[in-house]
């Protein structure tokens, strides 16, 4: 499965939920699949995605927003592996990380990460997250739907192919505009009423 195929499934199931995407090619490809108000693109915050998702999950806990989908990569997560420890420690119910693991820094020349030898799903499980692994689009659709039906914290470990989708446009929007758009969407949902 290519990354963009995984992002199509996530976009399909996460249409009504906040979705945070890690930097570079992942954010660009997500925006290319569909650029929506519920997407937060982290344009250059290396390693910060799962932490940002944890903060949003804390803020959404006990509200009408049931889950926050965080799309991280193996290279990005390895830059801030402590994020899994904190996520497991705080264990906000809306936390749902989709880890797209291709074993390389695909955005920077397919340089290998440690994930080629380390099972990041096992690390997340040791931190107390509910972990399920898959490597197909159908498996991703089934497992993501299951996780969205139950409180987290979850981590869906998705093995994907190396490489980026050719011809994907750069994301050149001002981060302030992207953040404002996402905030407006999310706060309207939160004001919709607590569970």
């Amino acid at each position, binding site marked *: 499965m290519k990354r963009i195929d995984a992002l199509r499934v996530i976009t399909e199931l996460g249409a009504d939920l906040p979705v945070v995407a890690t930097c570079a090619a992942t954010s660009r490809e997500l925006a290319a699949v569909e650029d929506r108000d519920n997407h937060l693109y982290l*344009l250059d915050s290396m390693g*910060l995605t799962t932490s940002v998702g944890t*903060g949003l999950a*804390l803020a959404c806990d006990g509200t009408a927003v049931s889950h926050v989908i965080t799309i991280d990569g193996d290279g990005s997560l390895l830059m801030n592996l402590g994020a899994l420890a904190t996520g497991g420690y*705080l264990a906000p119910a809306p936390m749902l990380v989709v880890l797209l693991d291709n074993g390389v820094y695909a955005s920077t020349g397919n340089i290998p990460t440690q994930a080629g030898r380390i099972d990041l799903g096992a690390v997340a499980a040791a931190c107390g997250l509910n972990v399920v692994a898959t490597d197909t689009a159908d498996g991703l659709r089934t497992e993501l739907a299951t996780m969205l039906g139950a409180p987290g914290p979850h981590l869906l470990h998705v093995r994907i192919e190396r490489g980026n989708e050719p011809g994907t446009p750069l994301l050149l929007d001002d981060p302030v505009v992207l953040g404002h758009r*996402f905030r407006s969407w*999310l706060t309207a949902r939160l004001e919709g009423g607590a569970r």
Partner: protein
Amino acid sequence: MSLPERRRAGVVAALREMECDFIAYVPSNTIADIITGLEKDGPTTFPVSREEEAVGIIGALPLAGKFGAIVMQDNGFGNALTALTTFAVAYHLPLLIVANTRGGLGEYNSMIHAISENVPAMLGASGIPVFSLDRRTGPEDWKGTVAEAGKHARMTHRPVVVLMEFFETAEEAA
């Protein structure tokens, strides 16, 4: 209660009264009383493994209409700088950081000066406002400055830092 204890209590009171939703910390012996004070009676307060993690978690709160603070030591700003600039500054996300200082007068660790003495210049060069507290003012000023720094972060939609120097002269400590 000693003067440093009253200053710490003033910081705790300011953080409580500004209605933070969450506070993340990376510990330091000098500010342990601030952390335990917040854990005892304050907003939800929790540890993180490194300072950039705190910037990610607390920086995300305004995107959900909430607000938070970070309690840390100033030698962690090196860890936090990329997160502060590419996330909190770039996306205009308000957050308050209160940090005790290590470099400078009274510091016993010869190595820590190399980062801590440069923190104000480093933050200034990154466009992050810094307000400093030290032995020359009392607990009410410490409390008032932290409270106003929280307002400043919200008003300017940016991260704001308060640096707290706990050094006292021998006469003051007596």
